[in-house]
């Protein structure tokens, strides 16, 4: 199964990307992303689709999904109700949620040297939304694991590991209790692993995994797991490297890709106060640029972000500093300019 090919650039070498600002700090941060892109002369145009959670209708959601289908790539802020992950991810078949948690040198955390890639199956598992109440007071919720999807996500994980030169893939599961469901998932991972002898494969039970993550997170390399455990592990790892303001996330499907911050929090309380951390969204933008094969732009912005992170006085509140969002963004743009590349008016 081929790795996703980005859509061909249209109209004079420029890509069009769907932008879904959403609620909370989404619009503010995405504006900053556009500012930085414009400044660095990134050949990307944004098609903005508004889905206001207060007035959201079936039609709005369909419009947004159509827009993503049209352009193939999207960058989105957080929406509490609309596109509640399962909905978009399933209708667009965005089966792989990928998160790269890396310790940033300038950020103080309890653990150092963390570099974990988390690949989470995004379409089935516990989030199948199949529930019923056959007898009053007794609710059954179905967790579905299929061979096809498990093979697909395992294949994706190993392919990505090889591409990025990673040495080890760990499958996270609870097959000692859910023998059939997680047992099937584990079996599929093993089958795929046999086709990649250069990569070490092991497995770990989810409760032990969380315990290991808070004591020795450096032991993990690439991790692959079903939906719910993926949610838990992603959030634990995001917390370990410094919080939701620092980690970007991506959702990949066969035909589409959607980029966002790794953890899905709307941040309503800090919206429009110029204190939100733009790092996660900017890095998500860089992931998107890499996806569009605009690697030079991606690297230049990413390096500028990392250099900015080394400056304590530019740290935003969530990582213990007092800097403002705009100060961080200005710094990023200043560093890009100083590297001598083509930039627009400051």
């Amino acid at each position, binding site marked *: 199964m081929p790795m996703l090919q980005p859509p061909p650039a249209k109209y004079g070498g420029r890509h069009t990307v769907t932008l879904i600002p959403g609620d909370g700090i989404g619009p503010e941060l995405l504006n900053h992303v556009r500012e930085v892109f414009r400044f660095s002369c990134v050949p990307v145009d944004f098609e903005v689709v508004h889905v206001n959670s207060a007035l959201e209708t079936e039609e709005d959601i369909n419009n947004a999904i159509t827009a993503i289908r049209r352009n193939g790539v999207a960058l989105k802020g957080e929406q509490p109700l609309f596109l*509640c992950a*399962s909905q978009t991810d399933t209708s667009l078949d965005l089966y792989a949620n990928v998160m790269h948690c890396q310790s940033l040198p300038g950020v103080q955390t*309890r*653990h150092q040297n963390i570099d974990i890639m988390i690949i989470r199956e995004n379409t089935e598992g*516990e*989030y199948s*939304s199949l*529930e*019923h*109440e056959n007898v*009053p*007071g*007794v*609710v*059954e*919720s*179905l*967790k*579905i*694991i*299929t*061979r*096809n999807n498990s093979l697909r996500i395992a294949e994706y994980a190993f392919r990505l590991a090889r591409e990025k030169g990673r040495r080890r893939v760990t499958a996270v599961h*609870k097959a000692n*209790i*859910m*023998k*059939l*469901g997680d*047992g*099937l998932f584990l079996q599929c991972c093993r089958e795929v692993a046999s086709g990649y002898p250069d990569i070490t494969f092991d497995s770990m039970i*989810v*409760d*032990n995994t*969380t*315990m*290991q*993550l*808070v*004591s020795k997170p450096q032991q993990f390399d690439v991790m692959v797991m079903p939906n*719910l*455990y993926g*949610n*838990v592990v*992603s*959030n*634990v790892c*995001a*917390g*370990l490297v410094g*919080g*939701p303001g620092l980690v970007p996330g991506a959702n990949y499907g066969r035909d589409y890709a959607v980029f966002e911050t790794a*953890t*899905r*929090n709307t941040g309503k309380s800090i919206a429009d106060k110029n204190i939100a951390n733009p790092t996660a969204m900017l890095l998500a933008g860089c992931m998107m640029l890499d996806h569009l094969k605009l690697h030079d732009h991606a690297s230049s912005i990413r390096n500028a972000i990392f250099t900015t992170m080394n400056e304590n006085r530019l740290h935003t509140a969530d990582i213990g500093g007092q800097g403002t969002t705009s100060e961080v963004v200005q710094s990023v743009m200043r560093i890009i300019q100083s590297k001598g590349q083509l930039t627009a008016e400051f």
Partner: protein
Amino acid sequence: ISGVFWSFLNGRCVIFLAYLNIVCLCSASQMQTVTLIPGDGIGPEISVAVMKIFEAAKAPIQWEERNVTAIKGPGGKWMIPPDAKESMDKNKIGLKGPLKTPIAAGHPSMNLLLRKTFDLYANVRPCVSIEGYKTPYTDVNLVTIRENTEGEYSGIEHVIVDGVVQSIKLITEQASQRIAEYAFEYARNNQRASVTAVHKANIMRMSDGLFLRKCREAAEKHRDVKFTEMYLDTVCLNMVQDPTQFDVLVMPNLYGDILSDLCAGLIGGLGVTPSGNIGANGVAIFESVHGTAPDIAGKDMANPTALLLSAVMMLRHMGLHGHAKKIEAACFDTIRDEKVRTQDLGGNSKCSEFTDAICQRVRDMD
């Protein structure tokens, strides 16, 4: 006059003797019998350690040792030995070491059997940072209360068609109500300020929704305890950044499994974490949740801290707070002192040396 004087004296004597009786009864608070299940692997050695420390502390506990290996009862159903069941039913309180779960032995795990036999519906794990055992997290002081009978661990799975498996997560009104009420009772009895329900009701609207509803209802009946709700992923995110914001957490089975182990990891792992299981009819079994460690069994290397702290939890449950405090303090002081620590805590003392150090401290406290 002498007659009146004599009966007056008699009366006083009677009252004085009665007073003495009461005083005697109170100070020699009756010996309570507790069922002890040493377990496998390092189980027996750490059980001996705990018994020694309790003796040194003069705790009014009498131990009744029982073994729990699965036996096949009439009708072919696996069950625990009848004498063990009888003992637990009589004593109500039990202390258990680690039990091994043999693979492919034909019978379900012993822990599962115990859970089913005594309807152990609540798993309580207090996670408190141990001074002297450094982890990246300090000042952790929270309690996880996990529903232990249903949820994702109902064990109901089917293969729908080849390659498609369905696992059923069961949430019932009854179990959710029971665990929610227990959580608030626990908070009240242990002077905890707030209870947080952990859930994913935004995705699993009906099942976690039901659980949440029951928690809210229980909160209404316990207005003296603060109630909050938080999504599982948010809890995970915040827990690793600042665990001090959490107090009592109540949740269904799977989330509880993951979170309780995560919290154990924060304070230093399963070797130092106590755990208690509360069942119906007043039954309560306290246990260490680490494994049997067959590689160090019989070598006097084991760390009895987890079982000891579980026993302390047991004392508190029984209302023997004085003894609980004494033993706990002795244990923490010994660890903090750093002179006599078992290998897993970073020292190189034997289990017996560690135990003796605690016993000495306990005796010194009197």
